[in-house]
């Protein structure tokens, strides 16, 4: 937990590259630098998986079932004699893609609806907010399960389900941030010189909700990964023979009485990655001086 409450960062003279500035401030903090390194490392591993993995992750060898760690198989083998390390490495592809697609979908739905609800208020806001309230009365996992029930199991539908479940949560954050921006003078100014609704929303409101949005996106990545792992654990997400850390945990769980330590590698990977997303989210919140979403 990052307890240091930094003051909102004063804007430096050059405001051309605010993204770069935020990045520089994230890296300057040890917690931010470490978690960012870990996540960038994951992307690297995912991209170069075939070069890094010592074995084919789908290569079965029933004679080599449940081997402990050795110099040949650093993390041992699983129930089909497949190399656990190679499977972990290939699974990072799901880890990288799943949260990005899910959160991307949530942004696609939640951002425009939140901006317009906050800016237009009135009837549009009332309708959208009631829909969000209704969707939020169902716990995330339960709602995702219901959506998978309609669309059918699989990693694609799971990502869609998670994205749709997160959309109303993102909507609320964006709407709240927009509501507080609308009162600002420059919005009035833009309206008075005849800017269209679209222009005011995208050019004048959007930049001001980016900070809470960024915090929320980072935190949601962690939740999305957790949800994907959970649904894959339940057998609704990734389908065999493809591997995700969640489905590997499930395979290990089924054989737990024979190989009690098999649950450790994928669990540790999951925890570290989620920890990295959460820590990064806290750091981004501190750096951007945004405390509304806490």
């Amino acid at each position, binding site marked *: 937990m990052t307890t240091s409450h930094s003051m909102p960062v004063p804007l430096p003279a050059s405001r051309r590259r605010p993204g770069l500035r935020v990045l520089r401030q994230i890296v300057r903090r040890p917690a931010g630098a470490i978690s960012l390194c870990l996540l960038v490392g994951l992307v690297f591993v995912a991209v170069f998986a075939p070069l890094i993995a010592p074995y084919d992750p789908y290569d079965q060898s029933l004679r080599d079932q449940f081997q402990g760690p050795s110099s040949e198989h650093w993390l041992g083998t699983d129930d089909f004699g497949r190399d656990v390390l190679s499977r972990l490495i290939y699974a990072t592809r799901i880890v990288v893609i799943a949260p990005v697609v899910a959160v991307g979908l949530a942004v696609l739905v939640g951002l425009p609806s939140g901006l317009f609800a906050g800016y237009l208020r009135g009837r549009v806001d009332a309708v959208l907010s009631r829909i969000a309230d209704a969707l939020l009365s169902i716990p995330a*996992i339960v709602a995702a*399960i219901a959506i998978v029930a309609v669309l059918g199991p699989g990693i694609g539908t799971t990502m869609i389900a998670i994205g749709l479940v997160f959309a109303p949560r993102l909507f609320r954050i964006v709407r709240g941030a927009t509501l507080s921006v609308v009162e600002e003078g420059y919005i009035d100014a833009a309206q008075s010189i005849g800017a269209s609704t679209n222009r005011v929303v995208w050019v004048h409101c959007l930049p001001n909700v980016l900070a809470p949005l960024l915090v929320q996106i980072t935190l949601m990545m962690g939740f999305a990964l*957790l949800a994907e792992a959970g649904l894959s654990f339940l057998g609704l997400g990734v389908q065999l023979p493809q591997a995700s850390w969640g489905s590997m945990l499930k395979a290990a*769980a089924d054989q737990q009485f024979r190989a009690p330590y098999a*649950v450790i590698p994928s669990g540790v990977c999951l925890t570290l990655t989620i920890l990295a997303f959460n820590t990064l989210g806290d750091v981004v919140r501190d750096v951007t001086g945004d405390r509304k979403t806490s």
Partner: protein
Amino acid sequence: MAVQFGSWLLSAVQGDFGTSLYTDRSVAESLMQAAPATISISIVAILLAAVLGVTAGTLAGLRRDSWIDRGVSLLATLGIAMPSFWVGLLLVSIFSFQVNWLPATGYVPITEGLGEWLRHIILPAVALALAMTAEIARQTRGGVVDVLSRPYVLAARARGANGGWLVRKHVLRNSAIPVVTVFGLQSASLLGGVVIIEAVFGVSGLGTLAITAVVRQDYPVVQAYVVLVAVIVITINLIVDVSYGWINPKVRS
């Protein structure tokens, strides 16, 4: 379609969710049969989380920057990041396979003895409670630290109030509202987490029923399950809202 929905809604409020497409059993009956296991685990987990979370958070907040505070913060950060189902698997590894104290799977109704019931329930409940405990501890710590810096606490101290009385009368009551909010939110998400925990511990509760129904495309069961969970969540929200007034009389008007 509107008519279909209308007639489904009408029978649903009367407790009739139709029959399962797969087993030909009444959906309401299946839910009733699966509910006790889920409810037992959830309630024990919620109680554990509330008691442990508030205790740890208060201790950490009162002794700010001490080793207790740092330990609680570290545990809370880990508790939030560790997937509950992985914690469950680790607990099974330790308590069922290494030392063989507790059963790894199954559920025993409370009618067959309190001890057996608790023995089957404690591991899933602990795994499920971890994240909620961590969130409640964080929120309680924040609230306590905030209240301790207020002038009225200084005034109470000046009048000679100290120890337990100060904590109970001034600190806890004034830091309770955000904690209760988190309690409500977390209880709701716990109802989602219990689905996965049931799978880990082989408990045939509501979650298992729902997952089986999803795989079999048994829509009436999924539908009834989602409605049931939503009703529980809305009830929790209502209780939380009412409790605001009870905690802080200023909210009542």
